[in-house]
């Protein structure tokens, strides 16, 4: 049991290594990718009982010395994020089987996906900011390689922008790290934090805000996101939007609740700054998403808006708000994963990338567009779909904090969500096909490879399924974690 955090990180890495060294047939590559990812997911899911019991899993065995050691340990927050992440990776690998069937460099692609899974689990499964930083950097390099997978000019330039911005984010985190270590002599996590207020601590906090905020796609550091996410292959886009930007939010939760004391944050009005940035992120992301005709770019800007909700929940500094933020991590991972999977399916089946081309596409790809509709309804926040609960808690926490205007922010943002998602759905099913967009009648409906179809549909169903299961256990877990912090 105590080795599960280590296993969940090392198994995909090991699988990637074996794959690079000895797999040459496509079937073997796929099987190994599936196996590595599934075992890692199983290891993460196997830790759920520990989360429910409030245990911290892990050993005191230190690895590496650069000169800091990393320890593989998982507490509630780690396990919550790890289960979501590893599940999304697992589905993305299944989805890739058909998405990548005509792609190039498959060995590299699957190996990189496995390494990325290992890195993202490493971010959450290590018990200090050191491990977080180490795996952040690994994740940055690997996601760069995934973003440029197509190797065309668009992908290369988007990738370069992403890489250099994320390297700067790494440097900001490095600065925060070294200052924290200098002030406190430690970098591990402790509920309530241990770094007291000082000018240097304030500087380090803002360095962390820059570093984690950039990874999360927070305004005004979001500018890499709308290029990098659409340029990547669709499963990678789903992971970038669904999982990787959440690591920034995870980092902020750790810094704010486990490393720095509330006094240190109050001294620089940290939560206020984060709050305003979160509000700006929400509005800006939604406003920009409205303008995009390119479907994946619209989804990418929508991710900016949605990460704004998570940051808002973190910034409000209350138990209920954090619960809402954590739950939104869960619900956004599922719904944005679904949406990118749908976009990928549309592109592979019809080569259509622009929203204006999608009229009537629901008649050709019904299951895909039903899934899209389900995710769209979820993202707008209609009960009983997942995101409704996160917005509910965020709104309640805003009121409790005496910030009634934030409720208006949430409402307006939901409205904007509706404005840029519903027309796609409505047009897809009821739109008149323009002459040049006419779909041939020779195609059977949803002639889509099965792995793509199933993974999309499953993810879409999960957007609503939990509402009908009592107790609503993802929400319950989020509540326990939040209660443990405050």
């Amino acid at each position: 049991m105590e080795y599960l955090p280590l296993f969940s990180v090392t198994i995909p890495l090991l699988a990637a290594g074996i794959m690079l060294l000895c797999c040459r047939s496509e079937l073997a590559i796929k099987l190994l990718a599936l196996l590595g990812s599934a075992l890692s997911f199983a290891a993460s899911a196997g830790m759920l009982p520990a989360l429910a019991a409030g245990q911290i899993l892990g050993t005191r065995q230190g690895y590496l010395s650069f000169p800091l050691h990393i320890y593989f340990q998982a507490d509630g927050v780690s396990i919550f994020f790890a289960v979501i992440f590893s599940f999304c990776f697992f589905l993305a690998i299944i989805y890739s089987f058909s998405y990548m069937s005509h792609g190039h460099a498959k060995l590299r692609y699957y190996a990189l996906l496995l390494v990325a899974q290992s890195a993202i689990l490493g971010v959450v499964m290590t018990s200090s900011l050191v491990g977080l930083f180490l795996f952040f950097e690994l994740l940055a390099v690997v996601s760069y390689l995934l973003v440029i997978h197509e190797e065309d000019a668009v992908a290369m330039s988007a990738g370069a922008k992403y890489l250099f911005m994320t390297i700067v984010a790494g440097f900001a985190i490095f600065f925060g790290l070294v200052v924290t270590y200098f002030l406190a002599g430690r970098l591990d996590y402790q509920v309530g934090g241990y770094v007291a207020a000082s000018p240097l601590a304030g500087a380090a906090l803002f360095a962390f805000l820059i570093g984690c905020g950039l990874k999360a796609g927070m305004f005004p550091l979001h500018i890499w996101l709308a290029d990098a996410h659409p340029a990547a292959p669709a499963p990678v886009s789903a992971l970038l939007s669904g999982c990787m930007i959440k690591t920034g939010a995870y980092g902020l939760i750790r810094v704010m609740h486990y490393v720095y004391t509330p006094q240190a944050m109050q001294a620089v009005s940290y939560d206020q700054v984060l709050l305003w940035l979160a509000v700006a992120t929400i509005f800006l992301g939604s406003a920009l998403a409205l303008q995009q005709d390119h479907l994946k770019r619209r989804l990418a800007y929508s991710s900016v808006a949605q990460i704004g909700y998570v940051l808002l929940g973190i910034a409000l500094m209350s138990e209920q708000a954090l619960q809402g933020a954590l739950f939104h991590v869960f619900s956004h991972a599922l719904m944005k994963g679904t949406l990118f999977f749908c976009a990928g399916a549309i592109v592979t089946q019809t080569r259509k990338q622009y929203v204006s081309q999608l009229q009537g596409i629901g008649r050709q790809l019904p299951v895909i567009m039903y899934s899209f509709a389900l995710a769209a309804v979820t993202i707008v926040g209609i009960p009983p779909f997942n995101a409704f609960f996160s917005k509910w808690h965020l709104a309640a926490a805003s009121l409790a904090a005496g910030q009634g205007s934030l409720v208006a922010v949430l409402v307006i943002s939901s409205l904007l969500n509706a404005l840029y998602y519903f027309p796609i759905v409505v047009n897809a099913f009821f739109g008149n096909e323009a002459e040049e967009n006419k779909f041939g009648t020779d195609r059977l409906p949803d002639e889509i490879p099965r792995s793509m179809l199933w993974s999309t549909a499953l993810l879409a169903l999960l957007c609503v399924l939990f509402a009908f299961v009592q107790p609503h256990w993802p929400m319950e877990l989020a509540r326990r974690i939040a209660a443990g912090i405050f």
Partner: protein
Amino acid sequence: MEAGVFIWQPQAAVGLLLVATLLVWLRGEKARGSSCLTLFALAGAFTILATLFPWVGAGEILRQTYPILPPFGFSFQADLLSVSLALLFLFSGFVIALYIAAYPLKHDERRFKTAFLFIMACASGVVLAGDLLSLFLFFEAMSLAFFLLIIHNRTREAVAATYKFIYLTVGGSMCYFIALAIVFVQANSFAWTAGGFMSAASLSALAFWGFVAAFGMKAGMVPLHFWLAAAYGQAPPPAAALSSVIMMKTGAYGMARIFHHVFGLEMLSRQGWDILILILALFTILYGSFCAFAERDLLRRLAYSSMAQLGYILFGLALLNYAALVGGFFHFLAHGMMKGTMLLCAGAIVSKTGKRKIADLAGIAWQMPLTMACFSLAALTAVGLPPMNVFVVKWYLSLGALSAGQPLLILFLLASSLLNAAYYLPIVFRAYFGAENRDLHASLVWDRLPWPMTVGMLLFAAGCIVFSLGPVNLPLELTKRIATGFLY
């Protein structure tokens, strides 16, 4: 520092290398034999010095003086720093010698190999010398011998680069000579003394800056750096590796000795010299990084990058505190392994394909996959990604800057790291990826390098990361002990 027990190891190691140099010369052009001889001599010297470890590891400072060089005799000193550095040099020299054994030098192999081994002997002598004059002797011989390597190709540019180098070297030795004379008159002693032995008399400043000029020139410190790019551009790449990994480090080593064991930290900080050195170090870091960024020739880019990296060491020395000193000393190893890998890879590329312009290197990874894999690891190391060596250096230098109450200095290090990323990573990524490279995947061939060259690159590349992989970073522990010994 009183005279310890009789030690023979430093003399034996240097003597062995000098004798081997003579033998290599006498063997003539029989290439294989002289390569084996070189490797055996380096390994032998390494083994001899390694036997000193039980004593120096316990913190002892062993000295041996011979009354052969007036006024104070010729002395060797073995302490933890000098033995560790000598071992590092000998190991690196062994790797480079292995590489040279298979490197296509085309002509005058005897001269090249003799000069190489002679430089190795002198570089070991520099770090094992026990006083200013003995060090001077080795330092001069080493510096002058290097011109034989720069001029190897005998082109017009090579000759020009050689002249540049020689004039600077001679200028540096003049500075050293004047400084030595002042020290002799003022202190009547040359031997390393903990805490320094110079007093703050009127000419001390001249002596200090004389030494700094001599050593700074070797370490590529601004404004004495301009021999570097020309020399790296013309010398065969293994010679550039020798310079980056070993010779430039002797300059930094000399600075450390001057600061700590001749003038003393108290005097440095009282006179404000440490601030000046710090400013020079920052200039060196930024100027080197910018020049490297602007440079289009691979070898010249690596030259400017070496200069910037040596700036890290000067930065660590100038901050005068424990953490910074650990960072600076550890960079001897970190930079040696990183830049050694890169220069050996560059040599492999140049010798195999004749390509030197960075723009021509697109797609090279599909022709020389192993070479580019090593280069990529070194490039990521240079950016300072954990867990590779340079991260450790940046970590301690940053802690040092914080201890000195100068958190903003960290931004200089980060700016330099960003420039490192900007001038190394595009080489790496264009070598592997890009629309024009997609068709090359299928035509992947292995490097087809002679095995000693491959092994050399792999050894250095492994050195970039291997020490951080275990739960205890042995070289770092050693470095900490050296720094402790220097400061307390």
